[in-house]
């Protein structure tokens, strides 16, 4: 399929809540996505606590491309393609560590942790001393910046500043990234696994799909808290014009544990009092699944943070981490690690059942023809949202279940896919055309 903006708009009729699954399987759309979405959006790379010391580095991806993120001697962070300028070989094959230099194992071009080319073998003998090393450093991202310790980068020098990109999502990000004065720490150990499906399916689910929880997760969330099986819990949903989304469960219980006898209970009670003082009463209560457009997600209140790395139209990897209060006692961090290990991740009691859905949906699209032509329904709560909520910024749907965030996510995706320039939008209060 050729990528024609009008055809894309037909496939993604977000205003009426009708979306074609072609956008989850078509190869040409995927290739265009790597360029127009992942080549331009601000993408989450890492949290400061993952690379605290000079020379600390980790490998991640920006869309399909491998990127090294490295702490500099001046405390700053740089990010550059993990691809040698000579023949495109990976210059670093460790997933993380501490390094003084990255030496390509093909011909030996060597780069410092700033990404600069510092030596090539046989420089005098074979290059006659004529190669301008300063011109052949690793390809750096166009912009890199951080918000509350969360490091983001973009390959587009025309992208607006990170803070504008995040827009009103910072109101919600602060509820987990700046919850208490001590800040957060990402625990060591990324859980990485593979889904044969499209990355957007997972991103949209985390943006606002509380609806699946009592059914998909009946055997885990339903067993931990049978009340969720009976009726929709109170809550709401948020989406920003920038495509970021969040479920907001109305749950004043700071426990929010998967188990009644949570050993973290006392600690969470105490920290919640701090959070209410730091963030305000309403904001401190915000907890739920979220997505920062396009592919950063998490479960605030349940300590989870993750990236959906695209690996092709019908394949993505989940890289999932656990977040704790940096100043928490070790026994509290350990309890959170144990709790998150039990529920989240490839073997997590909750997440094993997501994999079953996402893989089979991908299989149908991979093999089918009629199934690809069958439009999907995204109409839940359509017309019941407001952009003028008294408490919360962004577009709000006043029920926990709905597809307001999903529609907003694909609206934003369509902006990126159909715009030749970086698609700037009014961050806060754009009025919906038909209302």
């Amino acid at each position, binding site marked *: 399929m050729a990528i024609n903006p009008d055809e894309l708009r037909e496939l993604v009729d977000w205003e009426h809540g009708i979306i074609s699954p072609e956008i989850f399987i078509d190869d040409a759309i995927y290739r265009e996505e790597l360029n127009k979405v992942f080549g331009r959006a601000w993408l989450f790379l890492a949290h400061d606590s993952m690379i605290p010391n000079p020379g600390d580095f980790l490998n991640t991806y920006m869309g399909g491309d491998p990127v090294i993120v490295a702490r500099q001697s001046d405390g700053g962070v740089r990010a550059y393609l993990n691809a040698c300028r000579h023949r495109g070989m990976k210059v670093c094959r460790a997933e*993380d560590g501490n390094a003084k230099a990255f030496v390509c194992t093909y011909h030996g071009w060597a780069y410092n942790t700033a990404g600069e080319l510092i030596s090539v073998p046989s420089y005098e003998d074979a290059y006659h001393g004529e190669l301008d090393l300063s011109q052949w450093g690793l390809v750096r991202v166009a912009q890199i910046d951080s918000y509350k310790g969360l490091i983001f980068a973009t390959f587009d020098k025309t992208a607006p500043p990170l803070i504008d990109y995040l827009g009103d999502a910072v109101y919600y990000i602060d509820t987990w990234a700046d919850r208490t004065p001590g800040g957060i720490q990402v625990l060591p*150990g990324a859980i990485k696994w593979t*889904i*044969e499906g499209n990355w957007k399916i997972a991103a949209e689910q985390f943006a606002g799909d509380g609806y699946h929880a009592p059914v998909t997760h009946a055997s*885990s969330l339903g067993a931990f808290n049978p009340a969720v099986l009976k009726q929709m819990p109170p809550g709401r949903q948020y989406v920003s014009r920038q495509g970021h989304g969040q479920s907001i469960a109305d749950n004043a219980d700071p426990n929010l544990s998967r188990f009644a006898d949570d050993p973290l209970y006392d600690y969470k009670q105490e920290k919640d009092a701090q959070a209410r003082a730091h963030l305000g009463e309403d904001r401190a209560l915000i907890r739920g699944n979220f997505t920062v457009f396009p592919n950063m997600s998490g479960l605030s209140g349940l300590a989870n943070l993750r990236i959906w790395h695209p690996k092709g139209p019908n394949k993505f990897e989940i890289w999932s981490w*656990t977040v704790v209060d940096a100043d928490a006692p070790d026994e509290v961090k350990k309890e959170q690690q144990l709790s998150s290990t*039990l529920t989240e991740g490839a*073997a997590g*009691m909750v997440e094993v059942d997501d994999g079953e859905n996402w893989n089979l949906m991908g299989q149908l699209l991979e093999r089918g023809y009629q199934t690809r032509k069958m439009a999907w329904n995204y109409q839940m709560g359509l017309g019941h949202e407001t952009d003028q909520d008294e408490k919360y910024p962004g577009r709000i749907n006043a029920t926990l279940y709905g597809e307001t965030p999903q529609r907003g996510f694909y609206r934003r995706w369509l902006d990126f896919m159909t715009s030749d320039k970086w698609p700037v939008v009014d961050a806060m209060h754009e009025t919906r055309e038909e209302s």
Partner: protein
Amino acid sequence: MTETAELPLTIGYELQYRVEQFYYSEAELLDEWKYQTWLELFAHDLHYRLPVRHNRLRRQRSVDETAPRGIEMAHFDDTYETMAHRVAQRESGTNWAEDPPSRTRHMITNVRIEPCAEERGALSVRSIFFIYRNRLECEVDTWAGERFDRLRPAGNSFLIARRVILLDQNVVLSKNLSVFF
């Protein structure tokens, strides 16, 4: 098998045979979806752990990948109680990842037995596993790795008191790990 109540601590043919038979029986329970019976093979002070495998240069990797790592995320880091939660989930009838149940084969080999240095009378046993999962119409997953067990003699059999699993994957290549190792 002899009727001895006490296990000979001498590591010889008979002990080797009994440990291997124990593992074959365990594999049979898993492959026949008898998870509750499988759980009874574990001691109540169980620690069952499947750590993350790292891609690091030799000079920066830990020599003993089975050693405790403090506060680090893992695929499994379970007690007997949490394994009981997992077993109950599997048998709930709503654990869609394994319902309809997958067809699995747990192959256990390279069984090596030593006296346990940490617990008098117990055995440290290493074994290699290869697990095949065939699911629904056409899904296939395979997992290879090694188990490091502490087996505690109990009557004429054993209880598994510790199990550390080294799965030979960095990025897990399957959609989930809804299998037991």
